[in-house]
């Protein structure tokens, strides 16, 4: 009743329109590249960490455990601050974007390593044995037989990690990356239309995540082809 009686002044439509462009620019120039680059580096880190965890080399196991424990046990925002504002005290000064890439990659690496480790461990023992029985080495069995199956099992949880990452990149605004949300903050601080501008940002995040979940479903279907 109340809602339906709201009259939308043309002024708001203009504001929404004019803030769309800088926000999209922030998304295309920073949010999306930041997400993609961090996710790819993170996945590589995750596979290496998972392999270290399941290896029988004690030293590697411990390193991997400590890494995962630190990243999971501390807030992402604090990690970003240490990298961007803290490291300069050690003489290591990084630009905002690379700082954010390092922070997000480390984070994805830790969380995704647990997903990949669980997926590797869930592959039936018979698969390892069949691979060994035709003469494969550990690394051949892993690469050709186990990891491809583990990846399939990992797609849904990794998609969640990916979608979380898209949203988490808004934290990069606090280490001065001019990604989508920082653009929104800049616009709102000038016109004071906080509700409108931030809602618009939320809508854009939602649209991106919506498309990502469609891609996820497509991937799952494709990978399930042979599981008729």
């Amino acid at each position, binding site marked *: 009743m109340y809602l339906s009686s709201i009259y939308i002044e043309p002024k708001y439509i203009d504001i929404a329109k004019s803030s769309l462009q800088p926000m999209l620019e922030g998304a295309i120039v920073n949010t999306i590249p930041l997400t993609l680059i961090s996710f790819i580096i993170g996945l590589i880190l995750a596979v290496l960490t998972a392999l270290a965890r399941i290896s029988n080399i004690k030293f590697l196991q411990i390193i991997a455990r400590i890494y995962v424990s630190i990243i999971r046990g501390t807030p992402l925002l604090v990690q970003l601050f240490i990298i961007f504002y803290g490291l300069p005290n050690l003489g290591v000064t990084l630009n905002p974007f690379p700082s954010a890439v390092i922070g997000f990659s480390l984070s994805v690496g830790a969380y995704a390593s647990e997903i990949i480790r669980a997926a590797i461990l869930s592959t039936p023992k018979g*698969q390892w044995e069949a691979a060994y029985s*035709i003469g*494969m080495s550990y690394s051949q069995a892993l690469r050709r037989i186990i990891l491809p199956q583990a990846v399939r099992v990992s797609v849904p949880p990794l998609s969640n990690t990916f979608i979380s990452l898209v949203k988490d990149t808004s934290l990069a605004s606090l280490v001065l990356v001019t990604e989508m949300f920082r653009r929104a903050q800049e616009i709102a601080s000038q016109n004071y239309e906080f509700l409108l501008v931030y809602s618009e940002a939320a809508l854009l995040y939602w649209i991106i995540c919506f498309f990502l979940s469609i891609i996820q479903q497509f991937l799952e279907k494709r990978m399930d082809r042979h599981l008729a």
Partner: protein
Amino acid sequence: MISIKGLYKQFDQLEVLKGIDLEVEKGKVVVIIGPSGSGKTTLLRCLNVLETPTKGVISIEGNSLDFSKNVSKKHIASFRRLTGMVFQSYNLFPHKTAIENVMEGPIIVKGEGKASARKKAQGLLEKVGLGDKMTYYPAQLSGGQQQRVGIARALAMEPKVMLFDEPTSALDPELVGEVLKVMKDLAQEGMTMIVVTHEMRFAQEVADEVVFMDGGVVVERNKPEEIFNHPKEERTRKFLNMLQ
């Protein structure tokens, strides 16, 4: 020629194989029977070195492994290729088609070219009666078909000996025949085979020798007609009576 001498296998406290001695001549088919838990699977897995025996010597056509000494991973991997293993639960690679399952070993392990591996795999799949199912994924095949792919996959590595661990016991009764037929054909071609099975008909028709195992030892071994009609040992008699 395969020879197994003084083979022992212990899991933690449990001694499962207690000194197995066995020879199998080239081109012969040996069927192993015995009650559950007698160590039949463990023996086959030791021959394929999926388990490392506690001690004992296995030799296959002049290559020999002495498990009383330390054996290197490399040595185990090369020794493993002398035997082809067919599993009760098939263990096909679910993300690969039938023909890819068969080509995998030759390409990855032997370093064969794709074209020649494909040709050979085609021949093997035709041989096991699956020429029309080459591009099917395991999930699209019946149990009997999957097991025949499993046999083709093992054959593709050109092993000296084929090991079968209850290859038909996970199958619906009407699918058992097609797998046994493939095994019979293999035997007729002169493949050396060691088969653990409960299919007594198969043992009677195909085996050159039947080995009865119980409690981790070979209790009795003989020609099938002897062991089935005139078992010498009480334990063998009891086991055979129980089956009827």
